[in-house]
């Protein structure tokens, strides 16, 4: 089928609701309204009010009750309307969801998939545009996934819905309806923890994820024509755990690397990638790794949004800088 990311996600949820009676969706406006982005559209009328549940407006309760459901054997899929509204439920994530297996030495567990739209670029109000995946990547016991296209979105979500442990599934809302592509009709999975080497190259490695990965595709397209570069382009997809072998083998080949993230600079995931490259590939490096990131500022309201977001121009100048080192 031709599908944008919203449709691909909706399809993944529908197929899994069909095949797994223990799957339950819950959240604000996910039922009658089909979610404010329509990712759950039509699912309540098809699968019933006890499987697609409109909840009161309380993120901590949404995540907290999901934990109880998961402990009892369901696979709850809480939707948090925007990732900027996860924080009232942060304690439930960090103090419970991520710890229950460890705390009980495996007697109890927390299979759940927390879905949430994430990131900037659609001129949304305050709190609707942040990229705070680093908070979850730093939290032991969670897994973190961010797809960059409809096909991956469906396959990765299907995997997440079958995970025995909690997964933060962050959906770049800038990509939600950005384009459509052919997505397989049937159910399929893309394993968590594996990056996608989108294009191979030998001069430099570009690493990104989510909406910024699309930005990198554009920048790379422009610069490889302008400057005749052979660029390896990696879409991480899974941010916890990370496919380190893919990162290291690429950088060992190219010796040069740019990491692109939408999140603020300090302690965004790029920092970890740079640290690992330094640890493992010091002698292969031909230049310091560069990063293109948001700033250590609040994500501004939309009049300034485009200044905050890493642009193709900024990515290109970093690529040039690394190549010229």
């Amino acid at each position, binding site marked *: 089928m031709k599908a944008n990311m919203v449709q691909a996600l909706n399809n993944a949820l529908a197929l899994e609701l069909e095949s797994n009676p223990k799957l339950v969706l819950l959240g604000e406006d996910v039922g009658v309204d089909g979610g404010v982005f329509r990712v759950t559209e039509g699912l309540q009328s098809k699968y019933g009010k006890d499987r697609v549940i409109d909840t009161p*407006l309380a993120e901590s309760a949404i995540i907290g009750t999901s934990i109880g459901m998961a402990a009892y054997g369901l696979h709850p899929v809480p939707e948090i309307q925007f990732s900027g509204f996860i924080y009232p439920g942060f304690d439930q994530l960090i103090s419970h969801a991520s710890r229950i297996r460890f705390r009980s030495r495996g007697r109890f567990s927390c299979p759940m998939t927390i879905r949430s739209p994430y990131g900037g670029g659609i001129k949304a*109000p305050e709190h609707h545009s942040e990229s705070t995946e680093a908070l979850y990547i730093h939290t032991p016991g969670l897994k973190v996934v961010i797809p960059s296209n409809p096909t991956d979105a469906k396959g990765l979500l299907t995997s997440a819905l079958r995970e025995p442990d909690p997964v933060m599934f962050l959906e770049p809302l800038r990509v939600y309806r950005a384009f459509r592509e052919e997505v397989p009709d049937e159910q399929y999975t893309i394993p968590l923890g594996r990056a996608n080497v989108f294009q191979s190259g030998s001069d430099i490695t570009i690493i990104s994820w989510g909406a910024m990965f699309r930005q990198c595709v554009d920048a790379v397209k422009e610069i490889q024509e302008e400057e005749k570069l052979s660029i390896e382009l990696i879409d991480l997809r899974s941010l916890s755990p990370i496919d380190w072998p893919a990162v290291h083998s690429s950088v060992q080949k190219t010796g040069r690397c740019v990491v692109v993230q939408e999140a603020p600079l300090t302690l965004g995931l790029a920092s970890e990638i740079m640290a690992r490259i330094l640890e493992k590939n010091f002698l292969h490096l031909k230049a310091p790794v560069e990063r293109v990131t948001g700033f250590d*500022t609040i994500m501004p*309201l939309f*009049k*300034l949004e485009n*200044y905050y977001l890493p642009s193709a121009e900024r990515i290109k100048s970093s690529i040039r800088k690394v190549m010229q080192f």
Partner: protein
Amino acid sequence: MSLQKLTDFSTYKLSILDEQGKVDEKLLPKLSNTQLVELYSHLINLHVFDEKALKLQRQGRIGTYGSCAGQEACTVGTAYAMEKQDWTFPAFREHGVFMTRGVPMVNVFQYWGGDERGSKVESDMNCFPVAIPVGSQPLHAVGCALAMRYLKKDAVAIGYFGDGATSEGDTLEAMNFAGVFQAPVVLVCQNNQFAISEPRSLQTRAETIAQKAIAFGFEGIQVDGNDVLAVYQAMKQALEKARAGKGPTLLELYTYRMGDHTTADDSTRYRNKEELETWRKRDPIVRFKTYLTAIGVLTPALEEKIMNEAVSKVERAVQAYETMPAPSPSDMFDYMYAQLTPELAEQKKNFLAHLSRVNNASSSKSGEGPGFP
């Protein structure tokens, strides 16, 4: 050794002006004719502003906007009862509070136009900015109230929130702190029957929001939120009580959201026309107009004058908004801390250098304006 009764509680509803424009004289607030007209003008201003904002959004001249149609009496009525030294802590649908308290309309357009400068009110305007995280604001009002008392100010803090917000732990914690510390605060719930698509019945099994105050040991009352006189009166009493050191009050303003949740919403997906029509008959402005006309305070001529003034006020604000110079990218860095940190200074310097490189390159190439950063 028994099943012993401990305490009885009751909840009440206040209404003064009914749907036919008739009033209960005993309960009527003491307002002069001038004040009544002023109150009416605020309602009209807000209404005209709201319609304009919806239009601007459709034309892409502001961003996502949340209409307050149907709820005008709630914000205008409460704000009109306040004193200058009181502080307000809105959620996001309280445009009427800003404007009734004297915040220039242009600020409100700016905010919804994606420009933080709209929230930079004058230093004597005690209006905290719009904050989107549902239920998170009442705590600020409670804290402010405690500071007011500590500093021995004759002031009250007012926190606003919606029916949906009553499900958030923060709102409930705010009620609890208000009760425990007997804070000089008024907690105002605009119960407009919806939280986006979800009807009030989905938020709580309690019949009223007002009764939630029982859980925290203070007084809650339901008020007809489409009755500006009842809203004003209930608020006035709650403010006086707070000012007298007699503690907090929870006001449930029972009203209805006539529009979509925001311009990004389509309410036909989840609610029926009939309900909407029932509520249209309870329009707070029409009802108040009927009353003011009946008692001779409002004449058709005065009504027209008020409307014309509102329209030109709104137009002037739109013009001011649209001729405002764009915010500077430096603003991103400059308002993070009282003093720019060395780290941010460097990020700012690098970014501005990048911007001017890009702009030079693109203007030398095309002679056009600034390029994409």
